[in-house]
């Protein structure tokens, strides 16, 4: 732990209440952030342009099935699937444009495959036609008059057992068989990840029941874990809703900031947030990750987060403009950033830690969501310092020039006087 205790002497104050032996980064930093604004601008430009180019010419906007419509079937096999094999089966059933994607598991390959069909094979006349075709195509060892135990529901198994009554329980057997059926399905889904490889895996189930099940069911080599089918109408609706949500969010923030500060603060903050969103969406395009509904939720969250961050810096700037009347604006802004630096880095660091945990351990379903947050938090922090603050200064310098004042006079309007009085009175 670094020994502390410099600093107090700089203020010429001797006090008994010292802060000793603490862990503290970033004390008394004095970095000239505004001076580096051209580096920041260059950095932002590089990533923004890369993102825009990818959006326009390379991967485009990779929309998930939520927005572009289509069919998504997430299948787990009992063995590592052979892509060519699967594709051949699908082709034979007429699904020539199916896209296959292996799911990378944490433990060296899960046996999972994501099969997606275009919106063309997903019409609203028969929404699940694509899904049924896929399942039929993959069920190559189907036996007539037998159901697939790997894709059977609790109701199907219960019905079969009740009708065949292997334990000779007589009339009121349905509850008992339902419990057994639930046990079978739970073994398959919770312990075995969704597929049986053999009837011997049915442990804890009475022998006669297993034999009866073998009569009425066969085991295909896959289980369907997840299905998402979105028709064209819903896809369009969701697109509209996502755009509206983002627009309302930004508008709401703008109004709130205009209320608490002045318009220019609001505009600078919104520009910073817009920059963050652009870079995040660009990152998705560059890495060709799909944008789903949860990703939009993550983007809206990082809009809120980036605002937070910018507000903390602005609050300090506003406070310092009142206090340090004789200093130039860029000095005030620099000082404000330096003063809030430790808080900013700490909070981002901590939030980043939690989001990183989500990204590493949160699983496949949340992958897009956590990716958006990981990028968003880093960029959101960066933008408060690198975009919003310089913009404030630039605007003020421009206004000063127009009104004939020397460029560096800090007359940045702060929030209304009454509120300042309230603060001091606390």
């Amino acid at each position, binding site marked *: 732990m670094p020994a502390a205790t410099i600093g*107090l002497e700089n203020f010429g104050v001797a*006090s008994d*209440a*010292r*802060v*000793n032996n*603490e862990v*503290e980064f970033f004390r008394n930093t004095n970095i000239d952030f505004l001076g580096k604004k051209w580096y920041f601008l260059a950095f932002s430009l590089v990533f923004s342009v890369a993102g825009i180019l990818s959006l326009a010419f390379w991967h485009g906007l990779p929309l998930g099935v939520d927005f572009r419509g289509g069919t998504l079937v997430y299948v787990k096999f009992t063995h590592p699937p052979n892509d060519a094999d699967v594709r051949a089966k699908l082709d034979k059933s007429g699904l020539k444009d199916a896209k296959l994607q292996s799911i990378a598991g944490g433990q060296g390959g899960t046996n999972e495959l994501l099969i997606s069909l275009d919106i063309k094979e997903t019409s*609203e006349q028969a929404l*699940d036609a694509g*899904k049924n075709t896929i399942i039929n195509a993959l069920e190559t060892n189907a036996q007539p008059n037998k159901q697939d135990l790997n894709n*059977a*529901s609790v*109701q199907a198994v219960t019905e079969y057992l009740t009708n065949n009554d292997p334990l000779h329980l007589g009339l009121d057997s349905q509850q008992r068989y339902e419990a057994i059926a639930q046990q079978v399905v739970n073994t398959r*889904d*919770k312990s075995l*990840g969704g597929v049986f490889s053999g009837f011997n895996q049915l442990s804890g189930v009475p022998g006669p029941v297993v034999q009866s099940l073998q009569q009425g069911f066969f085991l295909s080599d896959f289980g*369907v874990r*997840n*299905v*998402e*089918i*979105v*028709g064209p*109408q*819903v896809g369009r609706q969701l697109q509209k809703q*996502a755009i509206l*949500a983002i627009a*309302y*969010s930004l508008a709401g923030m703008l109004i*709130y900031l205009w209320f608490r500060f002045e318009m220019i603060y609001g505009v600078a903050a919104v520009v910073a947030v817009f920059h963050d969103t652009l870079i995040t969406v660009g990152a998705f395009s560059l890495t060709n990750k799909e944008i789903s*509904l949860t990703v939009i*939720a993550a983007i*809206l*969250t990082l*809009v*809120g*987060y980036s*605002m*937070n961050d910018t*507000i*903390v810096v602005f609050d300090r700037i506003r*406070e310092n403009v009142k206090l340090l009347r004789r200093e130039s604006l860029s000095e005030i802004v620099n000082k404000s950033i330096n003063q809030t630096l430790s*808080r900013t880095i*700490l*909070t981002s660091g*901590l*939030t980043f*830690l*939690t*989001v990183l*945990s*989500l990204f*590493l*351990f*949160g*699983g496949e379903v*949340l992958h897009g969501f956590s990716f958006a*947050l990981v990028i968003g938090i880093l960029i959101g922090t960066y933008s408060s310092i690198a975009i919003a603050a310089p913009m404030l200064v630039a605007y003020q310098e421009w206004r000063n020039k127009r009104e004939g004042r020397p460029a560096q006079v800090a007359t940045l309007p702060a929030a209304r006087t009454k509120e300042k009085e309230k*603060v001091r009175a606390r």
Partner: protein
Amino acid sequence: MKKNLGLKTILIIAITLVFAAGFIFGPNPSQSINAWKSQGFVAALEQNIHLGLDLRGGTHLILQVKVDDAVRADASAAIDRLKSEMRTASINYTDVSQPDPQGHPDEIVVKGVQPDQRGSLLSIVSERLPDYTETSGPDNSYVITMKASQLQDLKNRAVQQAIETIRNRIDALGVSEPVIEEHGLGQYQILVQLPGVDDPARVKDIMQNTAMLEIRQAVGGPYPNEQAAMEQQTTPGVLPPDTVLMKSAVNPSDPSMSQPQWYLLSRSSAVTGRDLRGAEPTSDENGRPAVRFLLTGPGGQRFAAFTGAHVGDKLAVVLDNKVQEVATIQEQIHDEGRITGAFTEQQAKDLSMILRSGSLPAGIQYLEERTVGPSLGADSIRHGVTAAVIGLLAVLVFMLIYYRGAGINADLALIMNLVILLGFMGYFGATLTLPGIAGVILTVGMGVDSNVLIFERIREELRNGKTPPSAVDQGFAHAWITIVDTHVTTIVSAVILFMFGTGPVKGFAVTLTFGLLANLFTAVFVSRVIFDAHLNRHRAGEALSI
């Protein structure tokens, strides 16, 4: 400076207990206690947290109610009424029909009415067809359309009725805690969520079955195809007035019903689904599965009148515009009937249940289908909880190292935050989804921000030479406004997400909002009380562990 610490501490402990109770007992305390006794503590906890579909497994469907069907049906009935009224009033006409049933389902055109009879026509429309208005068209024709408000009403009623019918059917299937509600704004869509149903095929069929039952007089047939039917009429190519041709249903496993036949039926029905008061599966003389239905009082009377007047003639049982069965009327029948035909035993059972639940007022189409298998749900829970625990531990440990004594303060506040959040969700019966778990993780990260703000300010004030009590005062005072600002902006985006999002995203918005509200309380009030308690117990001049 006592500052009522005793009272404040009691308040904090009380609030913690209240929210912990919310989490442990959930919205239904007696049920939870029973579960606790019978299945153990953890199982009882699991019951209180309402898991979303993405964690429990189940099916999510969005249906479009084809409201135009209901409008067309209403217009069709209006045409019948209009014709009989015009006959009674001796108004001559050449044609009454719908010119464009697809594009304008509520439009009826009457042709060939002489101008002098216009007045009578108008009075018929205003008295007998109050939902419709009339305008003149070219060449002595009149266009009768539904009034705009009535049209809207009819469509909305169709959706509500569809929801009721679907609810009846799903309840009969025994799905636990289904969600059936209107979806979207003014688009006539229904959201159906069926937890635990991972094979939706049968449920979808049952929901979609319009089950429109009608009994009509069978005037002619069977004909092998439509052409033959037209040729064999008295005037070849022209159907007798008020008749329609209809196809029969096909049952591939029954040799006598393997090819469709065409029948000539009356346009209006003697009995419709609305006259049903019950239906149950049974079997016919040959042991084939059949459905027996019972009629209501007025329905039974009409049926008796019809059969009484047509003994010796044939009647046809029509289901969803397909002829199921044609039988000769041997005597007057009062209030029950039987449908045999193209069913398996399972289908007979399903059909009885569907008829009992009422027919759908309009067809439905599926727009979206998502099915999460329980294996994926279990995996998601595991991943979510792991990430949450790791994230939480990382933050707790960091705060201890970096802020030492004050770190304990922050950690306590954070844990209380989580207790309050879970308590909120328990009391409101809120649904926990996978993004909701992510929301909890984010709340931890963003919540600790408030503490960082306060502590950094306190450190700064201490550096500036203030005494610990004064530094704590100033720290809280300055940080307060910023904390409010940041929380309000994030809550604003969470609220917008809630309004525009669907299931899992809504769950995220809910946990984020509750978490931030809880944070406002713990980070400011609770932290302050702990600081004050600490300051009270130490002599002036001693360093603050921060």
